[in-house]
């Protein structure tokens, strides 16, 4: 490969990395919020799936009804769906104080089955998968060599890196609401004694987290694919769970983790298309294995939020 080719390869790789990382950013940041507030939301895999489905189904019908902003209407639909499921998770984990692992998995099963049921209900069994015209990539930089290729991204990708990540850092560590989130995740008694409503804080955070997760899913159906398929999420929610720990509940490190995963994923795709005969599944398994390894190495030093997994009840 000469220099130009290498440059193109690298630019393409970086561009793909950013694309692959985008849904993970939304999901991981969403989960960072909920875990910082003391709730492990294993509903993430399902909520992303539901986001992908609702986003697509709403956009499809809005397009048919002639709305120009059908994609944004779809995204709004996904946000609402994610919010509702986040609040349902809050109902189980906060109001009922039920086991968070089981509630979360229950939410995932519910969202997955509802999406599949809904898809069949709305679209029936078709020979050809229904599709929409997806979001287009921002191409104002396309004439810049190499960099243009890198910057040729979806608006949602720009939002993820330039807004969601820094804003989340600011919200968590520099605002009143952030202070309440951190406090409720460490010691809800203190929050209660301070005259704040523990449940309300956790409900808001779970709702916000659910909405972000759903956007992550909708990015795939409204942006990258322009369609919905049963394999659309394929474990990305679980990757986010891994990334949250890898990031030790910090939004900036979460972005870094998502980029690392995106890079590995993009690289294996490229190597595959270039004809290398690799067991690409092993690349896909890498983020999981790296997280497990990181856990094993960091071991006890990992400081989980103090009230992680603990429902709060007075007395």
């Amino acid at each position: 490969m000469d220099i130009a080719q290498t440059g193109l390869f690298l630019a393409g790789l970086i561009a793909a990395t950013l694309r692959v990382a985008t849904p993970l950013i939304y999901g991981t940041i969403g989960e960072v919020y909920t875990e910082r507030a003391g709730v492990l939301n294993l509903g993430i895999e399902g909520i992303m799936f539901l986001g992908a489905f609702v986003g697509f189904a709403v956009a499809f019908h809005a397009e048919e009804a002639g709305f120009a902003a059908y994609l944004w209407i779809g995204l709004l639909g996904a946000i609402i769906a994610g919010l509702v499921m986040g609040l349902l998770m809050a109902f189980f984990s906060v109001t009922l104080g039920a086991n968070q692992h089981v509630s979360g998995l229950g939410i995932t099963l519910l969202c997955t089955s509802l999406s599949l049921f809904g898809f069949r209900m709305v679209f029936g069994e078709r020979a050809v998968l229904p599709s929409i015209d997806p979001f287009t990539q921002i191409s104002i930089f396309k004439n810049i060599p190499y960099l243009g290729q890198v910057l040729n991204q979806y608006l949602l990708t720009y939002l993820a890196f330039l807004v969601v990540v820094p804003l989340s850092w600011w919200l968590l560590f520099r605002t009143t609401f952030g202070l309440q989130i951190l406090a409720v995740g460490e010691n809800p008694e203190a929050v209660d004694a301070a005259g704040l409503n523990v449940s309300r804080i956790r409900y808001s955070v779970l709702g916000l987290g659910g909405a972000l997760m759903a956007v992550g899913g909708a990015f795939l159906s409204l942006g990258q694919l322009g369609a919905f398929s049963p394999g659309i999420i394929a474990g990305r929610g679980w990757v986010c769970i891994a990334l949250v720990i890898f990031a030790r509940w910090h939004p900036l490190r979460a972005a870094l983790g998502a980029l690392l995963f995106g890079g590995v994923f993009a690289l294996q795709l490229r190597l595959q298309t270039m004809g290398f005969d690799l067991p690409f599944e092993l690349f896909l398994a890498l983020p999981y294995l790296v997280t497990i390894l990181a856990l094993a190495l960091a071991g006890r030093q990992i400081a989980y939020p103090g009230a992680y997994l603990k429902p709060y009840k007075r007395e």
Partner: protein
Amino acid sequence: MRIQIDRLPAPLWQRLLIPVVSIFLTFVITAGFVTAVDANPFEATYYFLLDPFSSRVKGIEILVKATPLLLTGASVAFAFAGGYWNIGAEGQLYMGAVAATAVGLQMHDASPWIAIPLIVLGGIAAGMGWAVIPALMKVRLKIDEVVTTLLLNSVAIFIVSALLNGPWRDPVSQWPQSPEIAAAAIFPRLIPRARLHLGFLIAIGVIILFWFVMKRTAFGVKMRAVGINREAARFSGIHVDRVMFTVALVSGGIAGLAGAGEVAGIHFHLIDAISPGYGYTGILIATLGSLNAIGIGLAAVFIGLIDTGAQTVSRVLGVPVFLGDVIQASLLLVTLGMLLLQNYRIMLKRKG
């Protein structure tokens, strides 16, 4: 009359009522989805709950569907009862299926008396092997097992996929599925012209063993103690880590056995979709069955019934087959909510 609610353990009748009420509520809630596709919810309920008993074939099919669920349910319940949150039954099942396939492919010259025990042991060993990593991390490094077991599920599925796209790809059809295992390793059918296989008896045996260990052995007392209050168990001289490690491995082994059963009893070769989420359904069954042997048995058969019914409902009423999954997921959540009533004694009292 007024209702009095006390914070005391609920009496037995009330606890027995919880799953019944949960099932009823679930059907009420999900009726909305049935009407959404212009079907009659009462008809749907009939096809879900009663029609499967209307013919011998369907009746037996319930038990076929229940077979892997009995095992994953027992696997999850055993772990949960011992305070080990094994979310990894799905992955352990996959690894059990891999080992069973590996054994089954080598058994062309063996007698069934050798092949079948070997395939069973292979499944158990592989499930255990897959459970070892998070279990060791738990007892040695105190690392939360929920995340590790969950992540290893995905890894196991990737391994299966790598095998099916690589060394085990069917040489004839080029499909991503393994060649068929040796006839000697295939589980015998229990009833002619039906899919019910030896695995069902094994599963029933596991459930009985589950009951026996929990209720009649010192280990059962120890593991329940660890499950209820780890610190108190440690104070009482129970080797918590040892108990938890054993529980994790046994749980993995049972899940692996489920995988072996699917290969040797149903599919006869390894496929990508060897489990449509049996490991996760195991969590539903363990919860619905209150971690108790009889409860798990009934719950697994009930979910087998829903799975069987879903296909009829889909065929007859045109309701998407996924309604069965919606019902199961709703049932898990409803039960989870209802189980909190276990801690309350509800009584009707006359005023005065």
